[in-house]
């Protein structure tokens, strides 16, 4: 079994050489053991040790003499079972700060994603093993998203393109490109929108060398519709950033600001901060969501209003009229049979909270809706109060397909794509690539775009690259490589430089760094001679913060806005809402197994996307979950399985973009359906589509099949009013333990007692914790089929429950509950393990000893929370045996073999690491010195973890305080298993109870 556990880590080992067993003398005396009894106080080379030598020498030699034959046999036998000899490699010279077995952290920037977040990379023995948010980064403040965590996996992806294809070498490739560019009449360079300032500079330099070169930005999911409206109405480019922490009333229209719309990490932090009430005079913000689809934001709403997206614009106009007291909302409500009372309450809230309310419209909506929203926000006095103007959005202005089409249709000489898989989202682009005299693809994988290119150039992974980013005005975020390139790859910017000048690449991998550094020195920092220090500091911090004075844009052009808002709109029987995929976004992470396997927070689909529709729509189409339906739009048609998803507006189909990507090497291994053919030219909503069942059926894999709580005490909830009227409201709902144990319960010492608290009022159900846990704990990927067999391995899962709010089965309120091992004091799993493989340690942890486990699965049966996971197959085999993929593993956590049970242990490796550190330095452990992976990632800071026995001054720990909260409860408390994870109930802020009070908001602002 040792063999299976090999890849605990340490530097990659030489395992080729094997030493014959006979070469190994074997001693009869376990001398060491005998000698230990004699206390050794002196350091080595004492006289005692000297005579030891004789004794030992004699025994060893004599042993070999008279036990010769037997020993040979014995060692022969021994050789059969002794693990093979291993090698240790000593470095030639010691890199600075770098000590074997100890981790280093580097700040960097995650430039892969739709928005550049600050990143902190954990590197051990030269290999990145964990990504987290950079605490010094002003936007994500140390938090991270599932996609960001997932980037680690793609670094070690064996399918990565490992050398230039289509050219003998980089030099040859550069030669070819330069040659082509020189002679080109028309050359086009296609990039993503979120490229850093230095990359932009590199591009402009390149264009100055080759005037024929045009730069187009292809970002199909860019915020372009909304941004263009603002540009038009304010007469300048920029974006309105919602400041949820200052808003008492939030109205989201088809806008998933907690999921896929905007800077979600920031939104989650600021929004969830306004959802916590502990005392009777606390208040919380109120979230209205008006949508046709069902977004993660929608599941967190206090009130959901199901409205077809075609009505969004007129709804907002009606709302504005009501707010400005021109015409009451009732007419609109009646016309579209909506709950007039609820809409009335909404209008009331908005009116009372002028300056403290914000309305956000989804990026997918058409211009009219955004114009109307702008006007409403103006009426609500939201501009520059709950909305903040950012004149420098992170991304460039994206070109529309039409523009690009117009540019390339009559053929180009050179067509270059940099780090963007155009063909996946725009299949027609392939023919332009093939039409070009020279087509160059620069990317991580041999994906649909690269395989259509003549010259296929492998890119660095973000963790191998130098880069910078300007997420927002006044912030420069730096990206530095944390590992030498694994393959013969080169980052895109490096290529740009190489193509710009004939000069041979003197310093590979540092050329762009110098370029970047020079640009910083020239443009961003006024440091003069102090540049080196400034540079070091900047790299260390990961960010350079400039002046952050508030920017006020030009006044809104009301007449134009009104004209725009009034644009009429034809809608048909069925409307289609296309959303970015919750984890693979536009498909750029569509080859990342972690992100494919993590269940969608709303639909709980794994490895798949589907046409979601409300129950009544499904009835109308007479389809059920799993039936294939054909969606036909003017832009194209696609067949994909239907998913009955209660909560959508009737007549609305919702599906995620970005799925259905495949490696060129395995074109058949496609997961989900590529829905890009359905994307309209503007926005992401098709207002008139036809839907027809094909009559075929397929199976969808979901991590959860039952969403009703069956009135069990699992998630407790109260309305804010209820809670403020009676602070004991939650406590009274708690289920009571019954029955006394026949035993005297075990007494813990006064030492550490590790416990966790999860605040459901903050948790929004994003998957950051799930993937963070997977990355930290070497959790296996099992694949779609095994997920279908109910064998997914996620230690942490997010359970979703749905409560009906009316008789209509589509009117629901949702609960998200992160569920992980509860580390019960009276753990039922421990009692039933025949070999003590799971037991309790002195610090209240329910430890799981993988190497002792024989896999009876009795513990899993007996776990009321069903958080234990079993290795039904040798899931890790692929990773353990691949020299590259095994680098991914966290050396602090055992890699589990087939037939072994596993589960969350509160990141015990981090706990022990911290304890040893404290013991080594003789320091006290303060609260927060140990943070679990899920806690560290959580953008809502919903998770607190610590030592409840921590006394003042260091204590009490945050977790201990939270346990005292009036909202605290335990799941399935009456079972008397004494879980050590305390949940804090979510409060629903129901309209009409009382208007949110402003004063709390003021404090909130102070806190920020």
């Amino acid at each position, binding site marked *: 079994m040792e063999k299976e556990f090999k890849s605990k880590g340490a530097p990659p080992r030489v395992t080729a050489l094997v030493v014959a067993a006979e070469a190994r003398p074997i001693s009869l005396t376990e001398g060491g053991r005998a000698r230990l009894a004699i206390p*050794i106080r002196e350091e080595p080379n004492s006289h005692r040790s000297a005579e030891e030598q004789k004794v030992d020498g004699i025994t060893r030699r004599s042993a070999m003499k008279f036990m010769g034959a037997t020993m040979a046999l014995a060692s022969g036998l021994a050789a059969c079972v002794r693990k093979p000899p291993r090698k240790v490699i000593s470095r030639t010279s010691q890199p600075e700060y770098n000590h074997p077995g100890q981790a280093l952290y580097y700040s960097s920037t995650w430039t892969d994603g739709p928005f550049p977040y600050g990143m902190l990379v954990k590197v051990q023995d030269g290999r990145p093993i964990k990504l987290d948010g950079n605490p010094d980064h002003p936007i994500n403040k140390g938090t991270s998203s599932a996609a960001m965590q997932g980037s680690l996996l793609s670094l070690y992806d064996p399918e990565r393109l490992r050398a230039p294809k289509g050219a003998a070498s980089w030099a040859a490739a550069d030669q070819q490109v330069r040659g082509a560019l020189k002679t080109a009449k028309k050359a086009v360079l296609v990039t993503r929108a979120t490229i850093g300032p230095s990359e932009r500079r590199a591009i402009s330099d390149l264009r100055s060398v080759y005037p024929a070169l045009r730069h187009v930005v292809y970002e199909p999911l860019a915020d372009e519709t909304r941004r263009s409206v603002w540009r038009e109405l304010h007469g300048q480019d920029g974006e309105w950033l919602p400041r949820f922490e200052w808003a008492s009333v939030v109205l989201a229209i088809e806008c998933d600001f907690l999921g896929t719309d905007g800077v979600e990490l920031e939104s989650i932090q600021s929004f969830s901060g306004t959802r916590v009430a502990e005392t009777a005079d606390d208040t919380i913000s109120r979230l209205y969501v008006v949508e046709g689809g069902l977004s993660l934001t929608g599941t967190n709403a206090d009130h959901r209003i199901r409205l077809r997206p075609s009505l969004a614009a007129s709804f907002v106009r009606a709302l504005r009229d009501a707010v400005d007291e021109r015409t009451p909302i009732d007419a609109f409500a009646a016309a579209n049979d909506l709950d007039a009372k609820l809409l009335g309450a909404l209008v009331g809230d908005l009116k009372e909270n002028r300056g403290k309310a914000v309305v956000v419209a989804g990026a997918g909506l058409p211009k009219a809706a955004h114009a109307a929203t702008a006007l409403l926000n103006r009426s609500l006095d939201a501009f520059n109060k709950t909305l903040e103007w950012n004149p420098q959005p992170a991304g460039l202005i994206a070109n529309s397909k039409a523009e690009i089409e117009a540019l390339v249709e009559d053929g180009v000489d050179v067509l270059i794509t940099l780090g963007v898989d155009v063909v996946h989202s725009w299949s027609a682009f392939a023919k332009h690539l093939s039409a070009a005299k020279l087509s160059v693809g620069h990317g991580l994988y041999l994906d649909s775009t690269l395989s259509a290119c003549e010259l296929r150039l492998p890119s660095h992974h973000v963790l191998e690259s130098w880069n910078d980013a300007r997420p927002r005005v006044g912030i420069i975020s730096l990206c530095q490589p944390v590992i030498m390139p694994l393959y013969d790859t080169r980052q895109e910017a490096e290529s740009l430089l190489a193509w710009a000048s004939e000069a041979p690449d003197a310093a590979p991998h540092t050329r762009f760094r110098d370029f970047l550094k020079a640009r910083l020195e020239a443009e961003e920092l006024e440091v003069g001679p102090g540049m080196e220090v400034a540079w070091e500091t900047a790299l260390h911090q990961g960010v350079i913060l400039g002046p952050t004075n508030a920017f006020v844009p030009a006044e809104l052009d009301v007449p134009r806005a009104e004209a725009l808002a009034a644009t009429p709109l034809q809608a048909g029987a069925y409307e289609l809402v296309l959303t970015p995929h919750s984890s693979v976004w536009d498909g750029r992470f569509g080859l990342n197994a972690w992100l494919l396997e993590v269940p969608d927070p709303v639909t709980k689909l794994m490895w798949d996307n589907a046409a979601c529709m409300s129950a009544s729509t499904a009835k109308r189409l007479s389809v059920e979950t799993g039936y294939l339906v054909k969606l036909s739009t003017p832009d194209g048609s696609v067949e994909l399985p239907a998913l009955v998803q209660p909560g959508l507006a009737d007549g609305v189909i919702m599906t995620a973009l970005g799925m259905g990507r495949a490696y060129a090497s395995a074109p058949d291994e496609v997961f989900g359906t590529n829905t890009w053919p359905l994307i309209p030219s503007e926005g992401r909503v098709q207002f008139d589509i036809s839907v027809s069942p094909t009559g075929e059926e397929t199976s969808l894999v979901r991590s959860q099949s039952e969403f009703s709580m069956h009135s069990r005490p699992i998630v407790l909830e109260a309305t804010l009013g209820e809670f403020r009227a009676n602070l004991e409201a939650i406590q009274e709902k708690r289920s009571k333990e019954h029955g006394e144990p026949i035993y005297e319960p075990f007494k813990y010492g006064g030492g550490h007692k590790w416990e966790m608290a999860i605040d459901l009022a903050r948790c929004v159900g994003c998957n950051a914790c799930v993937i963070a846990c997977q990355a930290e704990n070497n959790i296996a990927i099992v694949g779609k089929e095994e997920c279908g067999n109910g064998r997914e391995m996620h230690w942490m899962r997010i359970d979703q429950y749905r409560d009906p709010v009316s008789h209509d089965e589509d009117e629901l309120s949702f609960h998200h509950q992160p569920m992980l091992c509860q580390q019960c004091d009276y753990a039922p799993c421990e009692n039933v393990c025949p070999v003590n493989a799971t037991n309790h340690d002195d610090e209240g*942890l329910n430890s799981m000893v993988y190497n002792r486990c024989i896999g009876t699965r009795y513990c899993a049966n007996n776990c009321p929370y069903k958080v234990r996971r079993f290795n039904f197959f040798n899931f890790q085999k692929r990773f353990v045996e691949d020299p590259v993929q095994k680098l991914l593993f966290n050396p602090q956590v055992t890699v589990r073999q087939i037939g072994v049970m596993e589960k969350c242990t509160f990141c015990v490796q981090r706990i022990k690491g911290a304890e040893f550190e404290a013991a*080594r330095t003789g320091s006290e452990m303060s609260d927060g010195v140990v943070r679990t992976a899920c806690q560290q990632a959580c953008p809502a800071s919903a998770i607190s973890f610590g030592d409840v026995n921590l006394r003042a001054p260091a204590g009490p720990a945050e977790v201990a305080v939270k346990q005292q909260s009036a909202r605290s409860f335990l799941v399935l408390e009456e079972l008397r298993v004494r879980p050590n994870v305390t949940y804090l109930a979510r409060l629903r802020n129901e309209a009409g109870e009382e208007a949110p009070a402003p004063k709390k908001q003021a404090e909130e602002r102070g806190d920020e």
Partner: protein
Amino acid sequence: MKNLFTRRFDRLVRLAVTVLGGALVFGVGFSLYALWPSNQAVGYEPVQPVPFSHKRMAGDNKIPCLYCHDGAERGPVAGLPTVEVCMNCHTYVQPKDKQGNLTPGMQALFEYVDPATNKPTKPIVWEKIHDLSDFAYFDHSRHTVGARLPCADCHGPVETMDQVYQVNSLKMGWCLDCHTKPPEPWRTDGRATRGPTQCTSCHR
């Protein structure tokens, strides 16, 4: 046919039973002994790529262990000296034999060093001697700094070995011996009387 069941028959059966039983007992006992983990690990003495004598270095020259294995007080891994560390001294100290040739050890070392610049060229690939299972997490500093144990307690009198061999089984039972009933001084000098025996201390 004669009657089978005579006294001789009885004697034969008893003989057979005794012989078979004896064989069984011996077989089981012997394989147990041969396969007993401590019998496989103790005394393991592989030939190293560089004939480096701990006796000379730690014994005769009294170089402290931590000079080369500096990780032992800093973290989990004691670590091996980098070739640079070797050259710290051997740039100046280059023992020769009577014929004036470099000693075998030095010659082996120079395999890894550019003689012109004395700069390391390639890493040394040593044979691992003290090799714990990958699922056992041992932290050197916890024992050297935390419990203030001398290296020899586990590694034996290395300063007396020309070629290092393993003196202790380093098996779990052996660890527990010390963690549960530590030798005299630990119990008397008022420091922690025993090491942890909970699984999480070593297995994660």
